[in-house]
């Protein structure tokens, strides 16, 4: 599709995102996989941009993983979500922002179900009252955290210390953007740019100086897909999905991948090691892989935060070649030092995939 055509589609799918006062809920798995991401989101929104974000330690999972693994019924998920909405109501907020793509899709699906089956909403209100004596108001607006970084992208660009540009050649970096399936594939009108050509990450990349790569399997799933990965017998299917994506993007020589989903960066990152061990193949330059980032990590990098404070040492694929390309300073000695400067131990190096 020609670029002007995409611009038109993107213009049809723009969202009016409220500017301030958000109730923030974290993801179940992101804090384990990429622990710097959610910290950096709050750091940027609260301290760099001065916005009002509230989070509570009382919120739980949204139940999305169990729901998509077919282990709990939808009414249970709805009651869990109703409790989250009750926490938001009690805190005095009306705008709800989720860190996780699956949670975002889950909330939208549940609100749409209540719209079409109001008797179900009444039932869930009763269940919530019986189980924990809480009541809730439905949020006025539900956003994914990447929607907000998209909204603030130009403010971030103004404050940025670095741009997604090769320091030596002056060329924009070639960036692959990967959007989580539950972001807009279920409800295209709720995602920035719709389902076919989501603009949420493209907007960030363009504002921060990079060049977006269009490749054949761009909208393909990363391969996580819950039941594909969680059932070991299906795990080859998960890996094959990722392999297909990498084979498709390889001819375009991407410098980095940016994602906005909890599972995608994990699988695009870790499966590169598995593919290298199985097929003896690596996709980056000189035997390295293609580094995979969350959008908060990239926002943190362009704003000049220390890469090791962003948790980039927990990535499987080495990020140092990319940091060198952009010109971001880092200390190799500090890589495996914790916040208290104690050694957090070094991982064993893989056989084929080159790491620093």
């Amino acid at each position, binding site marked *: 599709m020609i670029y002007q055509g995409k611009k038109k589609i993107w213009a049809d799918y723009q969202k009016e995102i409220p500017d301030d006062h958000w109730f923030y809920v974290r993801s179940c798995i992101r804090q384990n996989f990429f622990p710097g991401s959610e910290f950096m989101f709050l750091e940027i929104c609260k301290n760099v941009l001065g916005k009002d974000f509230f989070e509570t330690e009382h919120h739980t999972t949204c139940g999305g993983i169990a729901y998509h693994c077919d282990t709990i019924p939808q009414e249970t998920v709805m009651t869990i979500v109703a409790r989250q909405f009750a926490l938001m109501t009690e805190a005095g907020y009306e705008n709800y922002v989720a860190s996780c793509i699956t949670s975002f899709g889950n909330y939208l699906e549940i609100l749409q179900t209540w719209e079409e089956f109001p008797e179900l909403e009444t039932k869930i209100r009763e269940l919530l009252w019986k189980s924990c004596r809480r009541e809730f108001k439905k949020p006025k607006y539900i956003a994914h955290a990447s929607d907000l970084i998209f909204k603030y992208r130009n403010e971030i660009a103004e404050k940025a210390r670095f741009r997604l540009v090769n320091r030596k050649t002056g060329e924009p970096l070639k960036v692959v953007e990967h959007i989580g399936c539950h972001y807009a594939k279920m409800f295209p009108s709720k995602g920035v740019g719709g389902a076919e050509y989501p603009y949420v990450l493209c907007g960030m990349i363009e504002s921060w100086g990079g060049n977006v790569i269009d490749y054949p399997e761009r909208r393909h799933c990363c391969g996580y897909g819950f039941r594909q990965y969680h059932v*070991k*017998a299906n*795990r*080859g*299917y998960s*890996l*094959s999905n990722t*392999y*297909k994506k990498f084979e498709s993007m390889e001819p375009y020589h991407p410098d980095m991948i940016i994602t906005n989903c909890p599972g995608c960066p994990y699988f695009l990152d870790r499966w590169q090691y*598995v*593919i290298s*061990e*199985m*097929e*003896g193949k690596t996709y980056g330059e000189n035997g390295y892989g293609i580094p995979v980032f969350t959008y908060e990590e990239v926002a943190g990098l362009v704003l000049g935060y220390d890469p090791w404070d962003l948790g980039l040492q927990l990535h499987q694929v080495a990020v140092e070649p990319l940091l060198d390309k952009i010109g971001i300073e880092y200390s190799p000695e500090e890589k495996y030092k914790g916040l208290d400067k104690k050694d957090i131990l070094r991982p064993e190096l893989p*056989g084929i995939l080159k790491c620093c």
Partner: protein
Amino acid sequence: MMDFGFRISPSSAVNMDDVDFELFERLCEIEPDARKCMACGSCSATCPASAFSGMSLRKVLHCLQRGKEKEAVRMLRNCMLCGKCTMVCPRGINTRHLILSICKIYKED
């Protein structure tokens, strides 16, 4: 190479530009019903041979339209021409005759 207990599946991608549709077009000339199939799978569900041989007329037509002729013909070897698929086809396709025509065009006895 390391054994993780699972493997990468071979690619099932078909490059349609490389597929020769000459035989399929000839089939459609003498059996226009071949294009009427909506792949509902009723024929496969009722096929007494499918459970133990993998025979599926739905898959056969699918394979022929993707240039996998050998696979299609291999499946048809298990057909007993009982005609149950003809009785259940919601599009009224004479599947028994269609199978015979496929065998004739793709040179299978």
